[in-house]
């Protein structure tokens, strides 16, 4: 095998090595990041990007791989965050037991609610998942018994000292990276397994899967629980990363932003949701700091006012992507190639 062929097959490995080594780099990326790559601020942002990239990859297991439009994915992420945070803060458990039980809570919740919501399909499914997630969101915000901290959120106490503070940002970054690798591996393995073939069939034509003698319900439930588990795991990592839980992660807007990430990157592809999640998170943070900077403040109000809202820009960008780039960013190379070929054919 020659070198280019090897690279084409194994390029994720050197890419992963580069990602692992990033905290040791002092390379400044002006415009992309505020400080050098290895600085705590940049690492924190990069870690968030990786977590959301992984979350979007897990969500695409439902949207792109099985064709299930769930509007309640935020619930399982928040279940991981809040269950772990509550066990740490209110029950005084150690971090590892709390994280394990938090993950278990996510698995149990997604299995239970998935089993219920998958009894309806299509728009009904979207609405039932939305309703359950909304119920969770209301519960967290109304703060029953003062445990969830309501709109203030929950500041986690009792995190292990080796995972708290600016000095340990690199460790948190590696944890986020590990979560990403686990998610990518799990999704890839699941999609290639015999179950993954059935998911593909369900996405293309559910009735035909039934005619072949398989019951789609069980397969869809497996996808739902796997995606919910990955989201809950992401919730635990997010709790470590931000040191607490915020009610924003329970809202339907959070699920919508996952949807935006997946579509932005390219639904149903291996790398697309990851790229979309990283791009979205990075853009949201950069646009927010851009909005506070002097460059924007000097503009006339017609430009300044819309530019000061990251969500406005992201919403507009999303509409443009839906129009101009139906396959998302991941579909871009193929589109360019097809255009080059058709141009070559004309010439």
């Amino acid at each position, binding site marked *: 095998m020659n070198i280019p062929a090897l690279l084409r097959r194994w390029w994720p490995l050197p890419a992963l090595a580069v990602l692992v080594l990033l905290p040791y780099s002092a390379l400044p990326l002006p415009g992309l990041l505020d400080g050098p790559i290895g600085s705590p601020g940049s690492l924190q942002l990069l870690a968030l990007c990786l977590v959301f990239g992984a979350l979007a990859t897990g969500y695409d297991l439902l949207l792109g791989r099985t064709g299930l439009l769930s509007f309640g994915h935020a619930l399982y992420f928040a279940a991981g965050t809040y269950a772990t945070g509550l066990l740490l803060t209110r029950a005084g458990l150690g971090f590892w037991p709390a994280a394990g039980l938090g993950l278990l809570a996510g698995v149990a919740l997604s299995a239970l609610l998935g089993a*219920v*919501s998958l*009894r*309806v399909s*299509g*728009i*009904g499914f*979207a*609405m*039932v998942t*939305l*309703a*359950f997630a*909304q*119920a969770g969101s*209301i*519960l967290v*915000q*109304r703060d*029953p018994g003062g445990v969830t901290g309501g709109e203030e959120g929950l500041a986690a106490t009792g995190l292990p000292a080796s995972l708290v503070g600016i000095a340990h940002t690199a460790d948190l970054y590696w944890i986020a990276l590990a979560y990403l690798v686990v998610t990518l591996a799990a999704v890839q393995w699941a999609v290639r397994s015999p179950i993954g073939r059935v998911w593909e069939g369900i996405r293309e034509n559910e009735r035909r899967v039934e005619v072949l003698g398989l019951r789609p319900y069980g397969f869809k439930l497996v996808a739902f629980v796997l995606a919910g588990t990955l989201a809950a795991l992401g919730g635990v990592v997010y709790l470590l990363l931000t040191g607490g839980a915020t009610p924003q992660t329970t809202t*339907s*807007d959070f699920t*919508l932003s996952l*949807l*935006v990430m997946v*579509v932005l990157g390219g639904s149903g592809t291996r790398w697309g949701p990851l790229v979309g999640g990283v791009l979205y998170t990075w853009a949201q943070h950069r646009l927010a700091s851009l909005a506070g900077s002097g460059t924007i403040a000097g503009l006339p109000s017609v430009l300044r*006012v*819309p530019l*000061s*809202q*990251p*969500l*406005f820009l*992201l*919403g*507009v960008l*999303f*509409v443009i992507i*839906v*129009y101009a780039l*139906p396959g998302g960013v991941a579909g871009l190379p193929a589109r360019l190639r097809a255009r080059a070929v058709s141009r070559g054919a004309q010439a």
Partner: protein
Amino acid sequence: MSTVVLLGITGLGLGALYFLVASGLSLIFGLMDVLNFAHGALLSIGAYATWWAASHSFGFPLALLFGTAVGTLAAVALELGLVRPLYRRPREQVLATVGVGLAVPALLSAIWGADARTFPVPSALAGTFTLLGASVPVDRLVLVGAALVVLLALRLFLGRTRHGLVVRAGVEDRAMVTALGIDVRKAFTLVFAIGGAAAALAGGLAGLYFGSVDPTQGGSLLIFGFVVVVMGGLGSVSGAAVACVVVGLVQQFANYYSTAGLGDLSVVVMLAALLLVRPSGLTGRLA
């Protein structure tokens, strides 16, 4: 007794808001299979336009008219500009409305700030009246009245006019209507305009009901709008009318007689339970 009357009328007022949101959503979904996530944005546009006009001494009825007109125009622009070009890609249509639903509240909070703005409630509607021993705010009656007028107008439109016939036929079987040589796409713009007008009216009335406007109002009303639409059966205006009364009343009474927030919770649990028992909604129209 007086508490029950007050809660009942307040619940009906809330239900009226839900109906105004849900009737348009329901028609749009029934006819076009588009779950319009931008409906909350249309509501917010109506709310801010009404608030703007009312604070510039337009007088409340005129301000409401202005807000409704702006919302209708926004809805028509949305349909012609964003939804129509994606006619053959229903999933992308939904995604485009999601984008608009994110962008518009952000734009509104960029222009007028993220905090709630006080709505100038006209003095004629600020008072209360006595009904069966309860002093009920007048604005609740305005809400219920507006919803009844819209319900009646929609029923007349759908039942007695040619355009209404096309819309009803399109909800039943769009392909067949097209095969008969009728351009259904005109009906698309029409239902978007109707839905936008109702949503914008709901926005203006929400300003009256809550006493303030803020950019997130549309989103939270939209969720209950979805609940009403699904419970009532997609595409059915009468179903939405029944469901909104149920949802508004249950929410008010549960919020009052148990801890606050439990009403909102019981509504979504009710939706889940209903869908599981009768997957097709109250009127059996769910796809």
